[in-house]
């Protein structure tokens, strides 16, 4: 089942409280993940985050593009609609390369790099 469908099912099956939680959770997860100082990576903010619920919520967030290899990361940078990118812990992208790609692209995005 696709992520979008899963989200839709969850929303349908839940009450108003759960609905509110579903709306607030991504916002809280982003705020929590952005508590640290970002690394200087071109115009982008590069946040290192630990494996945990924040990363899980971000993974489910439709507004977050998940990049699992460098080609997907490049595509995400070229896509003007993408503002936030999550590089999950199991992605084949090292931090060195992720930072290099950020610096190569002038436009600023938010990158969450999930450590192992």
């Amino acid at each position: 089942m696709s992520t979008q469908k899963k989200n839709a099912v969850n929303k349908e099956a839940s009450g108003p409280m759960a609905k509110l939680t579903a709306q607030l959770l991504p916002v809280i997860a982003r705020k929590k993940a952005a508590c640290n100082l970002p690394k200087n990576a071109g115009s982008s903010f590069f946040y290192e985050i630990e494996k945990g619920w924040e990363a899980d919520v971000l993974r489910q967030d439709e507004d977050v593009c998940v990049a699992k290899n460098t080609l997907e990361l490049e595509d995400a940078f070229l896509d003007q609609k993408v503002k936030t990118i999550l590089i999950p812990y199991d992605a084949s992208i090292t931090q060195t390369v992720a930072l290099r790609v950020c610096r190569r692209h002038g436009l600023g995005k938010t990158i969450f790099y999930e450590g192992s």
Partner: protein
Amino acid sequence: MSSILEKPARDLSAEDYASIEKPLGERVPYPGMGLGYVVSKNGEKKLTRYLGVLKKPLMVTSERDLDEVEGMLIRDMPTPEMLKLFFEVMSSINPRNERRAMYLKGAPGAGKTFLGEMAGNVSSKKGAIKIDCTNMNLYELFFETVLDFNANKSFYDALNTKIEKYNLAENKEQRDQVLNPMSIDILEDCLGNAFSEENGKICIDWAGVKQAHSNETGERLDTRENIEIAIAGLKQVSAKEGLDNLGGNALGMASQEGPAFQAYEEGRVLILDELNRAKRGTFGVLHGFMQFAINEISECRVRNPLKEKGDHARSDLHFQRSKMGSGFFIFMTGNTEDDSDEVLELPEALSSRVVPDPVANATLQGWQHRWCQILTGMPISTLYNAQSHIWDEDPDVFKQKLKEWRELRETREIPAHQLNMLRRWQDVMQATGNLAKFMDAASKTVNPDSNWHKAGTLTQLLDDISETFKKEVSVDFRKINYFITKAMMPKPSVAPPQDENGPDIIPLLDEMDIPEAPEDIKRNLGTHITYVILDWIVANSYERGKEDLGNQLMQLAADCALVDPQLIEGMPSNRKTVAELLDENPFDSNDPDIRVELIRDLLCDYLRNSYPDITAENSEIMPASVVRRAIDEIAEKGAGPVVFNSNPDNINQEPLQKAKCIDMTPQLQDEGQNEKMAPAADHLLSQYALLATLAAPELREHNLSCLWNEALSGSGVVSLGTEGMTDESLAIAENKSETGVAATTIIVQSDKSENEPTELPLHVIWNKSMDRLLVVGEGEVNDSLKRAFNDARVIYIDRNANNAHSTMRKGLDFVLGAETGTLCDTVRDAFLMRNTLPTQKAETKIDNLSKMLLNNDLECFLPHYLAKEPPKLRTA
């Protein structure tokens, strides 16, 4: 066509122009640099630039909406010295301007590239195309060689899949089964810096393969050479991994249009960074192209030297004005020739066409602007200085505006510390002003060509500073990022040796400054920035045998409040240091929620002290709202002293408990009628109960105010002063002194009294004007209270500790500040209004006071008790 800027200029309609011209400065007060005469008091006029706000909007060419343009340009505002060029760049990008190129030349780190990127990002949603021309064959702006992914898709897909499996493998054995270890070595060799390995994970930056290698002298190889090396290695990997059947034995390359043509077609800004460091002998290709860009010719062709038989790429590129995207603009940057031997002079035919605009040197305003921008994401100082008269009228409006502009159409997640710092913008202004002064002066000190050296004021340093040294330690705007990055890294916390005969060592970083989690460094960012700057001074001066330079820079650091002048000159100071201003101190927070949370945390620590087995989180023990309500009640009722409740049974109903002050000083008006009864020792408040509240915002001021009264004046046993002048000692003893200093002794219950409760005199000196506190008691305080005291500017001294005397001297300097010398005797006399002590002699005034406060034989003859409520009185 998705963007108006891709349309040629001649095809733009009036509506198109209306939609891409955004009036900057119409809705937000945008700073600008004017040129005018400064008239001195004696009427002399001097032509100079001045910072103000744009009176007439600057038309910014952008396909973004005005909110986005304003948000980006306020946040990424160029430094004041670059604002003039900013105005020119933004005006030049307008499609009506036929000259589509600009060349900025100046010192490294001045912000030239930043300006170009900002202009490109504002104008086009795709942003600028930035090319680092260092050692670059400039032909590759037009044609470049790449791996032919399309022709060999199966191979690359298979290799990527193997890499993904390799990264998911759990151990070496599994990894070796996925990829032959020799293949990894080959990939590393053939892909150069496009290959990376970290924590057992490998990664290929395919888009970076074309620029992966340098030769033995560090010069970048052409894309074709890079691709040839890559293909040779990939073929070997293909054979080893059994991918030949997927085309791995016949990998190919392709030539494609370079970034110059992409920018031309898409109507984007092309940044040619470090142009005069490009590969020697390759500038020729730019002649025709620059003629085209500045509209000397309406078209030009660039031949494809890379085209081979079977290559589908064009044989040449045809640039035509009539087809050029209207947003196309070439923004070139270069360093001055004296910067390095690698900087080339541009051929005359080229430089006469693109006349360089010189970039002004960094100024104090520029330094502060960049510090503010990097710390908060906003150029607070420039926004403030451009119209300080307005913001001074209502600083809160400025605070709101800063937040509003910081968030205006920001698509990135704003770091939490930036918003916190914007709330304390005055502190940030003060701290960055000092940091700017330091950086400006340091840059001139380490540069033998600076005006300071030319003026002959630093002749003693010339032996310390060679040309090589100058380049190594040069201080430009990039140093700010360097310092911040270093500040965020973990640092060693080293305990100095406790040798009695050895020197007294004060570590720059206390163990309390090194948080458990490295990312928590941001709370003490000021402390850590100070550390890295001082570390930089030591590493580049004293440790390189440059004693004079070190002394000069350390003096500078003291002048700029990076270090407490006391450490350099032994002089106490009232001035806040950069660390104090920038550290995120919850005690000083203006946010009521943060203050209440701090009080709640202190309360929970207090509770844990009595019940160490509590494991619940603070929020579970006590909701912040309950604490808020209790604090509000104190404010409303104006009760006496209050302390934390340590009774778990009713803590949620009454987080705070009342206490009572009982001053035994007899009063003339009583005439012996009402003899006072002292409270029993077991009903005195414990020392810890009072101390815990002294680290709590709101409670601290409330409780301290309760410790002083007018009993001494009313007792008739002390002199009120002469000729109508209040005795200064009495004023200090009653918290009425205009110096802001108050001193007293309070009797509490000793924390050490395990079996038999005993009384304990607690000496308190409070400097209200600096809100600093010195408390002398008995016994150690726990680590969490120590940390809280650090934030709350409280120095606590255990009078029986081995180092009590030396700590006391530092404590007196801290609490009395610059007034230590003049106030010591008066403060001592203030204490003697309630206490007596055996005769003792000391050499200095400070020793006199210090020894008295540490003396266990000091006897309090007019005791002022702090008792539990209701107090149980002693039997007569």
